[in-house]
């Protein structure tokens, strides 16, 4: 047999990756401890988030529903996870004001989770019985079947606000263009760079790439969540520092250090 069965308990070629994960974990924990100790974190404001409340308010006045699309990513996409966190805020606001919410889902797992989030939000504001079963529903895990159903819904039910948060793909232009045609307020957040130009053009506010993840943490303004954004910034700073040091050393004839970034 050409390749023997592997019996090693650790792959030494990956130790640098392990160190990276542990460092990042340390950044997270240090910043969370700082947050516990009462340190307040500055996070630059994200315009799209401030617009969310406004949009929900307007929908309530107009008596028309809000359409919340959690993207076409599954649970392995971080954009979906961020979308779930943003949904917690949207659902609570919607529950408070008592307007209609529609959440068509592409992934059944996401549907189940979103349903749980919304129920909980209604419970928290003490309106458990106002939650409409079936307002969060699965449409189809086939991309354009989903698009067909949602655009149809946009044209017929005329939601007052369309909120796109999560990982969107080719459907972005289709949905955003149709939404634009119906005159709804549109707020988007997407981590797929390729689709951003379309959201930027057709929506009132757009969270670009990583801002979507930050929004998830930013939204509750809880110190522990904000601390995680700070930890990410530390990691970014570390990455920049490592890059510059290695480049400088290379310029002075010592390219060896580059190996610390190579994983087997």
């Amino acid at each position, binding site marked *: 047999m050409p390749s023997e069965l592997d019996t090693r308990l650790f792959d030494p070629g990956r130790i640098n990756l392990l160190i990276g994960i542990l460092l990042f974990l340390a950044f*997270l924990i240090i910043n969370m401890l700082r947050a516990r100790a009462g340190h307040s974190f500055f996070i630059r404001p994200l315009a799209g988030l401030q617009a969310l409340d406004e949009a929900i308010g307007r929908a309530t006045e107009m008596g028309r529903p809000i359409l919340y699309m959690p993207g076409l990513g599954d649970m392995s996409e971080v954009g979906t996870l961020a979308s779930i966190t943003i949904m917690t805020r949207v659902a609570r606001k919607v529950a408070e004001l008592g307007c209609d919410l529609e959440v068509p889902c592409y992934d*059944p797992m996401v549907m189940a989770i979103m349903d749980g989030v919304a129920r909980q939000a209604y419970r928290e504001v003490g309106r458990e019985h106002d939650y409409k079963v079936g307002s969060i529903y*699965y449409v189809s895990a086939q991309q354009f079947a989903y698009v067909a159903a949602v655009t149809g819904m946009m044209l017929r039910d005329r939601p007052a606000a369309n909120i796109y948060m999560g990982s969107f793909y080719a459907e972005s232009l*289709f949905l955003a263009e149709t939404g634009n045609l119906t005159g709804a307020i549109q707020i988007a957040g997407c981590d797929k760079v390729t689709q951003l130009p379309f959201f930027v053009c057709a929506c009132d506010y757009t969270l670009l790439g990583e801002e979507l993840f930050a929004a998830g943490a930013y939204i509750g303004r809880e110190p522990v969540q904000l601390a*995680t954004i700070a930890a990410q910034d530390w990691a970014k700073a570390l990455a920049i520092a490592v890059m510059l040091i290695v480049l400088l050393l290379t310029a002075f004839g010592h390219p060896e250090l580059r190996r610390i970034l190579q994983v087997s």
Partner: protein
Amino acid sequence: MYLGPILLTFVVGATLIALYFIPHHQAQEINSELLLWATIVYAFALILGSVSLWSVHAQRIRQRISGWPFSLVTLFALLGTTFMGVAWGIGEESPLGRFYSMVNSPLASTMFALLAFFIASAAFRAFRARNVEATLLLVTAIVMMIGRVSVGEFIWRGFPGLTEWLLDVPNLAAKRAIAIGVGLGAVSTALKIILGIERGYLGRTR
């Protein structure tokens, strides 16, 4: 009520991270088995989803909401395709296979093709050089569109080279920064979930 599931997420997540560093063949088998389980859970979630789709349309029919006959179409299609696939399989020549290439394929590809029209209308209506940023976007887009096709070379021989440079230098730089940022965001979110800091997915908001 939440402690159990949070612990489960922690154990499963931490195990999968550990397995990345353990090349032992038995460890890798455990890895495959766990991934398979996730696939199975998803399959059951899809059953849950289909029930949800069914009840939404059944409700529309029961309450005679405008356009309810169309919901009948959805229900028939759902029931019919599921039955065909479970009874006779999903192969290329099975009834479902033929149905798919006759109905789903043309519908999906035509929906996709509509985007060509939408993109043209968006190009006219929304993509306008309002400020420096928008102008940069537009000029790059036009150079790309013209430079990547035969006509571009006809107009100016330097076009293909220019598009390659745009892709290789500014595009590479921006995409790389985004990849790093998104990567960090992803690692951070995943770690938060594994550590139980982020619990939104369990329906717990605080």
